[in-house]
């Protein structure tokens, strides 16, 4: 009896290092995985993979998805799941294309009106959630379906090929603008992440978003303006989806009902979950989201360079996803102990 009693007192002093190492590994698992991933592809194809051109390709792929995923992270932290981003993005791009390419309105006007339309869709989402009291998962699913139908009807009224062509100047030149040799979209992505990092970590708004997502009732009782936060999160998610879709459509010179907001990485929800943002709200780090987005872009680019077979590719993506969720799950379990 006496032999077993001192054990708990001795254990923490004997094993602090492995536990600290484990915690470090789990906290930075995605970053370590990214480094390993880069090392593997760099070894397999040093000339192409490590070139500046490929670096920008990876960052461009990251940027097209990353901006939406950044705002999506805010929505998830606030406890809102938005399933309409793909359709909201597509219909915004189609409306933009209709105004700019078919009606030949000025670029600036078409862009502002399209973004206002996206904001309106985000507000409708938040109205359904706040006023009609429909869970965001269902409300956004319904609006997304409506948006898809709207996109199809606009396209079918103006095109027989399922696309509205966007080759009217100067859109392509603007989208492909480079600032000191770096694509403008990449600079924009890093700027968005920096602003959101400050917002989430150093402002009262950020703290309120975490509080709302973690425990909505407690947040409300503490005087947090929950409705305003939900409106903010869903409106900016919709606007970011619209913006990303216009960028993708402009770069692809056409807008269609399936303009891929998620790019080659799948939807923003997948990318956000992959980066460790919990579905239940109140958790998630924006810097980890950025690493997750870059990880997925490197995976896409690397496997394309190595011409990995589609079957192996699908398995590797699945394994990476399971691995990321596993690390996050273990980390959360250790943190709650």
């Amino acid at each position, binding site marked *: 009896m006496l032999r077993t009693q001192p054990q708990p007192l001795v254990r923490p002093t004997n094993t602090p290092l492995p536990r600290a190492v484990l915690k470090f590994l789990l906290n930075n698992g995605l970053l370590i995985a990214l480094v390993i991933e880069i090392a593997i592809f760099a070894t397999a194809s040093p000339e192409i993979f490590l070139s500046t051109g490929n670096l920008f390709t990876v960052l461009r792929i990251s940027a097209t998805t990353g901006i939406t995923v950044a705002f999506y992270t805010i929505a998830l932290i606030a406890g809102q799941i938005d399933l309409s981003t793909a359709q909201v993005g597509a219909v915004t791009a189609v409306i933009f294309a209709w105004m700019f390419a078919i009606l030949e309105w000025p670029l600036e006007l078409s862009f502002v009106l399209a973004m206002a339309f996206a904001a309106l869709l985000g507000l409708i989402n938040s109205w359904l959630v706040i006023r009609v009291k429909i869970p965001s998962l269902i409300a956004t699913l319904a609006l997304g379906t409506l948006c898809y139908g709207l996109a199809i009807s606009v396209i079918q009224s103006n095109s*027989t090929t399922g696309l509205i062509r966007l080759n009217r100047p100067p859109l392509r030149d603007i989208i492909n603008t480079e600032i000191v040799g770096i694509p403008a979209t990449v600079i924009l992505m890093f700027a968005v992440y920096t602003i959101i990092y400050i917002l989430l970590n150093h402002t009262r708004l950020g703290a309120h978003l975490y509080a709302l997502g973690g425990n909505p009732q407690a947040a409300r009782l503490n005087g947090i303006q929950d409705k305003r936060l939900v409106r903010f999160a869903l409106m900016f998610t919709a606007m970011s989806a619209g913006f990303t879709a216009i960028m993708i459509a402009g*770069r692809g010179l056409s807008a269609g009902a399936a303009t891929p907001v998620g790019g080659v990485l799948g939807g923003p929800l997948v990318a956000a979950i992959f980066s460790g943002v919990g579905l239940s709200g109140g958790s998630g780090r924006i810097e980890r989201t950025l690493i997750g987005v870059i990880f997925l872009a490197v995976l896409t680019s690397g496997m394309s360079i190595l011409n990995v077979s589609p079957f192996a590719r699908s398995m590797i993506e699945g394994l990476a996803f399971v691995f990321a969720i596993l690390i996050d799950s273990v980390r959360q379990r250790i943190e709650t102990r």
Partner: protein
Amino acid sequence: MFIKRFMHLLFVSSMLLASAGVLAQDATTYTADEIKEASGVEQCSQLAELPKEFSEDWKLAFINPNKAQSFWGQVSVGMNAAAEFYGVEFVEMDSAGGPDVELFETLLLNQPDVVGTHNAVDYEAVAARALDENIPYIGFDNGQTEYSPYVYGIPNGIAGEAGAELLIEGVQARLDTDWKDRELFFLEFTHNGIPACVDRTGAAATAFKEHFELDDEHIIQLDLATGATEIEMMLSTLTAHPDAVFAMIPCWDGLGIAPYNAAVEAGREADIMLVTLGGDKPPADLLLTKPQGYYGYIEFQPYCEGWGWIESALAIAEGVRFAPYQARRAVTQADIEQRYAELYGAPSS
């Protein structure tokens, strides 16, 4: 006598020269027979008389939209086989259904001499980017773009019209016999999120509608992108029109075969007539059983289309003329046994 000898000598000399010319041609360029032999059971047609010794070591590059799909998988096999046959370097990427325009930047790092993609959504952006770099671009099944003078493959609209022609043939025969005085509907199985499908089945619907002078109510679009399955849509359409007959064209083979089977299960096989587009092995297997409602398919021969893209790209690099790809072969119940034996061997009993 002298004249006779002279004429004889002249004839022999000219024959020798002609033979030498033929031999010289054989020795320097590939013949159509050599291409047929090299492409195995597919017996691909030669599109360009390419030299056996190229003027440079050409490097070709292509972004495949999704090799996991049987059609594009076969295109890839054909491309790689042709590249190996001609002894040129071929860089291939797979965008797995995503956009090509970003991956294209990585493809350019390989410094290819001729490039190509298929994705209907952003192929013009890729062609424009290739033009920026002064690299010839030859797309695949997308038709003309203002950013490149080269066209290759079967444009989706033409493929749809070819399917409609075959379907019209089959439906007309039924209207003259057991479908006489029945209400006819055209079912367009498509996916509105895929522009290639909209273009393809849309062209088929227009051609069919014009031929039979149908009104809009008799053209039913069944859109997979709505979330409903093709089987659900087929069954609800059959239920809504219990006395009608249906002519069907899907965007790809599988999108027509599943509803066809559903209609058979529902006891309405006699009321449908299906033509599919693509012509891989699964539709060939089904057609071989001579089902009442499956008239035939338009065979694109993806292997040969892939082979032909390599030939056309090399022709551009070498400055040689190339012919358009013409595999719009219609396969019906009348000739499926022969075609099946050519491609897959004798069918098992």
